[in-house]
């Protein structure tokens, strides 16, 4: 049994209702290797690892550790078996100290009391042993995400993890922090720990992993060695089609500026600077892409434009109207449409029916109400037209929005926002979680709006989407616009600026 892999998953199937998140997936992790789990968003990577960590129970399949079949029904069991996991969203308690978080669940005691001194000492020991610097007495809410991640890794090691799973660990890290992390991972594997590294970033995977298992729509495509693999070959496995999906665009007819931000700054919910001195301009007939890694101020910037967040500095002009201090209603009325990044949160009222959702902007206009009284029949009639026009399937005007599929929900949002005849369209993550057909629909509509002389600000985490749709691309990093690039620029160029690398180069 000495040669048995550290971990083996056999035929894991996990269903959520009718959705099959994992379909008979096999996965093998050798001792001391870094094994990447690669796939697009929604390919089933996190689900597979949550099965391994006891957060989900598989419907079928088997887990073997060191060749022994095991049942993992809770994280407690997983920890006991030497499995540690660093989640995408850190599982730490913000108001507690690093040491408290680290020992939670396996606290050193003296008598009935928590032995906090021993806890901090253990943190210091581990911290120097693996070269992961943390301050045991700092509160988690006061330390940066990079440090928080170190705490999570230390916690897994503290609990004796021999198999370490990292779920998209670099998503929140700067380039430098990511390099530091890779160094740590190599130290760990040299000491015999095995690492599962979940990612959807090709370059990273080639950089750090020994082998790669690719998942696509819940199924395992292949396991390959990174030796000899290229970004292109991996990308092919990952998406199963040509990577760049080209969108047909006509020649640009640029018009006057429709959306102008001048030195706009804003703070986030905790009062920390989130948007820093952003100046940008969207003209009629162009799609301006805003590229950036998650949580670099994009959400706050959109909210500031839409009047949902008060700017601390700067001016915002939409279609010639000063909307710097306008509320959401005034901003909408100035001719701005908003395809919200999270349609469940901002885009739709899921408990409303489609007719009601389609009227969210205009219920007060004479078309749908008079003297404060609604005209339901008019709302339904209009909804019927729109549902046909935008090809919304699976519902009529009286259907609850929450019962539609994600793609059709997004079509409802787009139908509402585009029929308001806007001049400016803020499209935030407009294709998140949609299938290919719906994505194409959304892309086509956005390009049509551009061709019709509207100004589109496209905010997306999918670089491919930004590159294929935009006429020019701005890169946002830590709330600042750090670069403007043509969409044809290489992925590496974008990557440098998106991870904050560009500033040093410019300074040099």
């Amino acid at each position, binding site marked *: 049994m000495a040669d048995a892999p550290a971990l083996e998953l056999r035929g894991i199937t996990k269903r959520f209702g009718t959705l099959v998140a994992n379909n008979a997936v096999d996965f093998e992790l050798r001792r001391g290797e870094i094994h990447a789990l690669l796939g697009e968003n929604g390919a089933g990577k996190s689900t597979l690892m949550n099965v391994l*960590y006891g*957060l*989900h*129970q598989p419907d079928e399949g088997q887990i073997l550790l060191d060749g022994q079949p095991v049942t993992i029904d*809770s*994280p*407690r069991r*997983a*920890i*006991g078996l030497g499995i540690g*996991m660093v*989640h995408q969203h*850190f*599982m*730490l*308690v*913000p*108001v*507690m100290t690093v040491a*408290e*978080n680290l*020992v*939670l*669940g*396996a*606290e050193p*005691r003296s008598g*009935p*009391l*928590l032995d906090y001194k021993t806890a901090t000492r253990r943190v210091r020991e581990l911290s120097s042993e693996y070269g992961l610097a943390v301050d045991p007495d700092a509160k988690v809410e006061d330390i940066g995400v990079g440090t928080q991640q170190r705490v999570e890794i230390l*916690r897994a090691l503290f*609990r004796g993890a021999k198999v370490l799973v990292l779920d998209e660990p670099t998503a929140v890290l700067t380039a430098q922090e990511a390099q530091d992390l890779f160094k740590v991972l190599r130290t760990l594997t040299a000491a015999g720990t095995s690492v599962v590294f979940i990612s959807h970033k090709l370059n990273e995977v080639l950089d750090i992993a020994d082998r790669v298992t690719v998942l696509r729509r819940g199924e395992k495509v292949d396991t390959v060695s990174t030796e000899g693999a290229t970004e292109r070959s991996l990308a092919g496995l990952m998406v199963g089609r040509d990577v760049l999906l080209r969108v047909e665009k006509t020649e640009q007819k640029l018009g006057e500026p429709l959306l102008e931000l001048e030195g706009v700054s804003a703070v986030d919910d905790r009062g920390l600077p989130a948007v820093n001195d952003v100046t940008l301009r969207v003209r009629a007939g162009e799609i301006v892409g805003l590229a950036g890694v998650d949580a670099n101020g994009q959400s706050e910037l959109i909210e500031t434009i839409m009047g949902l967040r008060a700017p601390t500095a700067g001016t915002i002009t939409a279609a010639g109207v000063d909307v710097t201090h306008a509320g959401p209603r005034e901003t909408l009325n100035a001719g701005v449409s908003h395809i919200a990044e999270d349609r469940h949160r901002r885009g739709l009222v899921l408990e409303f029916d489609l007719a009601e959702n389609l009227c969210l902007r205009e219920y007060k206009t004479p078309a749908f109400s008079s003297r404060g009284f609604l005209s339901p029949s008019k709302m339904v009639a209009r909804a019927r037209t729109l549902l046909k026009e935008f090809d919304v399937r699976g519902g009529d005007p009286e259907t609850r929005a929450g019962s539609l599929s994600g793609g059709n929900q997004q079509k409802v949002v787009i139908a509402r926002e585009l029929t308001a005849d806007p001049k400016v369209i803020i499209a935030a993550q407009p294709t998140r979680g949609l299938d290919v057909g719906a994505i194409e629909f959304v892309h086509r509509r956005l390009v049509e709006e551009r061709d019709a002389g509207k100004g589109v600000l496209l905010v997306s985490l999918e670089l491919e989407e930004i590159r294929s749709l935009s006429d020019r691309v701005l890169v946002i990093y830590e709330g600042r616009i750090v670069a403007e690039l043509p969409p044809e620029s290489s992925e590496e160029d974008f990557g440098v600026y998106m991870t904050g690398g560009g500033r040093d180069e410019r300074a040099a």
Partner: protein
Amino acid sequence: MTAKRIGWGAVVLGFLAFFVAVPPLTVRSPIVVIVIAVAAMAAGSYAITAGEKRLGWGGIIAGMIGLVGGYAATQSGVANLERVVVWGALGAATLRYATPLIFGAVGGLFSERAGVINIGLEGMMLMGAFFGAWGADVTSSWLLGIVIAIAAGAVFGAIHALFAVSFRADQIVSGTALNLLAVGVTGYLFVEVYGDLGTPDDLPSVPNVSLPIDWLPLLGDIFGDLNLLVWLALAAVLMTWVFMFRTSWGLRLRSAGENPLAAETAGLNVVRTRYLAVMASGGLAAMGGAFLSIGFLHTFTQNMTAGRGFIALAALIFGRWRPGLALAATLLFGFGSALAQRLPVFSPSGAVLFQALPYVLTLIAVTGLIGRSIPPLALGRPLPRN
């Protein structure tokens, strides 16, 4: 002189404005009161402009209370004042009125620190009041009475946990339901068992603890002859603090209330933690109820908690979910009640208004005027479905 010190000075001055006008100092000139109170408010305003908003507002409010209270005292007869303001008796009464609130607040702390809102404190307290009396009557032992009260409270807590944790119910609605249910259950059993006669006169009651400290001025009067449950309540605060902030169980309980997923991924059983916390909450609140029935009033009457569970909840919020601050809040509210009991000397009806004081103060507190109360992060959030 930092702004912070001036802020604290304002608070102290505010209370001083009242204090000089009552025995033993009994200053008779309203000018003195007004001067001190105005100084308090001025210092408070300064503190606000200097950035110490919370303390500053606290100082201004203390100044206003001192002004009103102190001025009223200068305008009333010395004899009356001396009958009302007997610090020893007031102190003892404060502790007596505070005791059910302390148990309730500490009980609420367990539940809410673990992430489960406990609006049902009132009901749990009422259960304790009835079952304490009934248990003591049936077993002829106050000790077993308390034990039975705790058990009844814990059972009620378990029902709350069943709905709030396992059934993922809306915790406020289920807590409200428990309050309504407790009125029905205790009322029904009370009528069924005791009928029109009420609980017997020889109901065993929790004894007082006599300390040989009569010779101590003031302290002797306050602490010399308190009910055992008063001491237990004070001990409960200390023990709760140690439990919450100095033991690993407390760490686990708080993690379940701050970030249950984190607790879960650290290998903890959040469901079990929450169950135990809510049951402990019920048991403690029930002790407060038992104090009312077999420690203080020596009888049970229908719906006798009369909102004390809600004041306890208010004290918990007022005290920002911290044992020490919650204790301070219960003592403040208890002092209001103690004073209200003695004020009818001046105005038979006006004293009643003092009963509203805890609620007014809590209302001010939750508006964030004197600092924001930040509840445990996951408070009221059911666990995600797996």
